[in-house]
């Protein structure tokens, strides 16, 4: 039923290498992401998947390589630039703002779009107020989309894990990203939760044409929803292609059997 219109390369990662002290997390990794596609990064634990995402949105700064995003070549990203130019992400181990409500978390995801100054804010008048209301409405659409209306005002800490994951996604979505990096969005979820999450990811991709780069352990999920897959193993890229190609790649199979998957 899903008919796709994959565009050109929007994000191109070129021989990225990253090391922490002696530890080589990534060794000259290259792959590209096309607009509107769902791109999966898989690999055993410690393969450097999260590090890869962290390089893409500027949390880490690779020692070598370059990142081409929307035609702009950069040595490395910085988080603010990444966010401003439409890259958002979710986190593997929930990184929600636990002191805030669901709504506030999502509103915070909207922060870049909110510009009024401190004085206006303090007086809560005119533009500041209008902006607040406008963005609230936008965030309500996100809440609606992710079907978390009943929890709007609940402190995120009180939500079950699966829902927290959803809020995390909502926070990223609030920024209306062009590229959405999902770090194991379904980790630790039960079957229904996974199905829901899959549905949301696909809907996001359909409805907003958001390009999605996701890390996922659940092979079934990856093979179902992703258009192309990169396989990392111990910081090296050992496979890249459509789910079928990857599934039958002997190298990949070996790595996975080796890693006990």
């Amino acid at each position, binding site marked *: *039923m*899903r*008919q796709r219109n994959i565009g050109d390369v929007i994000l191109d990662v070129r021989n990225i290498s990253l090391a922490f002290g002696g530890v080589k997390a990534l060794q000259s990794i290259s792959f590209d992401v096309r607009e509107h596609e769902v791109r999966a990064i898989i690999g055993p634990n410690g393969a450097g998947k999260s590090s890869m995402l962290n390089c893409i949105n500027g949390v880490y700064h690779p020692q070598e390589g370059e990142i081409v995003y929307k035609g702009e070549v950069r040595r490395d990203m910085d988080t603010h630039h990444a966010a401003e130019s439409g890259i958002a992400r979710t986190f593997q181990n929930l990184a929600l703002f636990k002191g805030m409500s669901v*709504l506030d978390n999502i509103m915070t995801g909207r922060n870049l779009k909110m510009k009024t100054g401190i004085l206006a804010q303090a007086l809560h008048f005119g533009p500041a107020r209008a902006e607040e209301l406008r963005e*609230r*409405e936008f965030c*309500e*659409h996100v*809440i*609606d*989309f992710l*079907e978390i*209306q*009943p929890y*709007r005002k609940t402190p995120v800490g009180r939500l079950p894990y699966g829902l927290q994951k959803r809020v995390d996604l909502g926070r990223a979505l609030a920024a209306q990203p062009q590229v959405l990096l999902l770090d194991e969005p379904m980790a630790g979820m039960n079957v229904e939760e996974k199905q829901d999450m899959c549905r949301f990811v696909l*809907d996001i991709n*359909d*409805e907003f044409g958001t390009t999605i780069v996701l890390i996922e352990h659940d092979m079934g999920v990856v093979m179902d929803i992703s258009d192309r897959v990169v396989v990392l193993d111990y910081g090296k890229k050992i496979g890249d292609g459509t789910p079928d190609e990857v599934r039958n790649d002997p190298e990949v199979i070996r790595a996975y059997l080796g890693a006990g998957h």
Partner: protein
Amino acid sequence: MSGLPPVTADTFPRLLAHHAKVRGARPAMREKDLGIWQTFTWRQVADEVRAIACGLAAQGLKRGDHIAIIGANRPWVYWTIAAAQSIGAIPVGLYQDAIASELVYVFQNAEITHAVVEDQEQVDKVLEIKEQAGLIAHIYYDDPRGLRHYSQPELTAFEKLRAIGREYDAANPGFFDAEVAKGKSSDAASMFYTSGTTGHPKGVVHTYAALIDRARVGCEMEGLSDAEEVLAYLPPAWIGQNIFSYAQALVAGFCVNCPEAAGTVTSDMREIGPTYYFAPPRVYENLLTSVTIRMEDASRIKRGLFKYFMGVAERVGGRLLDGQAVGLPDRLMYWLGDLTTYGPLRNVLGMSRVRVAYTAGEAIGPDLFRFYRSLGINLKQLYGSTETAVFVCVQPDGQVSAETVGPPVAGVELKIADNGELLIKSPGLLREYYKNPAATAEVLTNDGWYHSGDAGIIDAHGHLRIIDRAKDVGRLANGAMFAPKYIENKLKFFPFIKEAVALGDRRDMVSAFINIEMEAVGNWAEKRGITYSGYVDLGSQPAVRDLIRECVEKVNADLAREEKLADSQIRRFIILHKELDADDGELTRTSKVRRGFIGEKYGPLVEAIYGGRDEQFIETQVKFEDGRVGKVSATLRIMDAKTFPAARKAA
């Protein structure tokens, strides 16, 4: 007089026009969407309806056509109903959970050409049956999510439909008003499908006259004004929902509120605080259960407070509500209770502002009923059905009881046929079953009486009392009426009794099989230090037998007070050694007892009862969860219960 619109406004579209004129700026509908209660004034609603109506017309929907509407409680559902009616089409509400095969029949039967549905799920369902359903030409969907890539020509977004309508309206200015003017009160207004127990569902056709008359009577009786707030949370396809949230709203001009999602109904109810509320007994029961459960883990003090004041309420609350005389000290205590308990409780239940609350459809337990009334919530019973446009009997304030459903409301005549069946004459009767004259003739005799299929009694105060389905009512040997379900219900209202089967058709006395409620009886026994090994053992404890006997005798006492049923007092009963179970064919899947089957299966017991024996050995087959078949056997004691002289009251 609650300022109801003039009788000249005799169709819903005209009523809508009237309100748009006299109270155009007042809220007509609210929908919790995007976190707030988006409000639509009567004028806005009128505009929306106009646009949709014109859109449908432009899309080729014609006077007399049927249009299917499948959706949750959302404003567009009600707007579409009004829109269809504006151009003389007949809206047919369908349940969201209806399965494809049901849809197929309805779509064929009503020759549906247009369908307005909620979302992808419903669209898929309708598309799936398109081939069999034949005529379906247009499907409008409200929520585009997931439908982006659908290319079927039938599909149109609801948004689009309204846009089309606005253009069409601009192009043909006079069109809409002309169409509304064409409508006659004798026209078919809506069609409601009732799923009969057997065979295909029947389409109940109601005219404007019928629906509006009933709605108006209800409003006048309760003095409903345009200040009411109702929460629309029951399926719109159900006639009750249509009456309470559409017909009456359009008559009285009050505001209908649509909850945000199925999961938020309770909290939305807390926010809105409806003033006019309907719920089937089941809902009230669940509410009460949740209250008791939540109170259980409350602090000691709170529990004590609650217990004490509920006691006060039970004593005083009902009487206060019925405006009877109550002593000052009691009034004071109740006032205190209201401050500390009832008030807060009503608040958390969302019932602080309820002026009128109805329940109907099933017999409601007296305790349950009393609980809400004692809280100061004006809960009343009502009797009606799809065919009678709901309002047949309603309990007027001050004449409320758990047993009756009140006297007939204005315009209704009641008659009990010789077989005990209730016959109804009312302006609200159905016009016909759509394209089913045979069925129509069955229920609607040409002397104008509608055969309800319910067996009822009219008591000395002229209050109707529904006792059973007519077909289940039998006769005792002496010819007295025997209504098993009525007796069984009375028994089941006791917490200790889970299931009951009343026997006695064509016999000289009534007897009963009883299943005890393991948990309740178990606790009761433990409190008294009675040890027991299991279900059978518990049931055969003398103390338990006596407990059940008391219940039975209480029921007998009740029955004795009703002349027609005095003979139905339970002479003997048996506490069964196994729970009646659908897997063993003793209950239907909807857990109604299958008397005939049970009568045969437990033949020996029946003989023992009527053979006057004191105990009887029985062995029965049981199916276990894992499908294995086993046998349980026991020697059951047959108990005798005290009966009471029939109290012949001076009528």
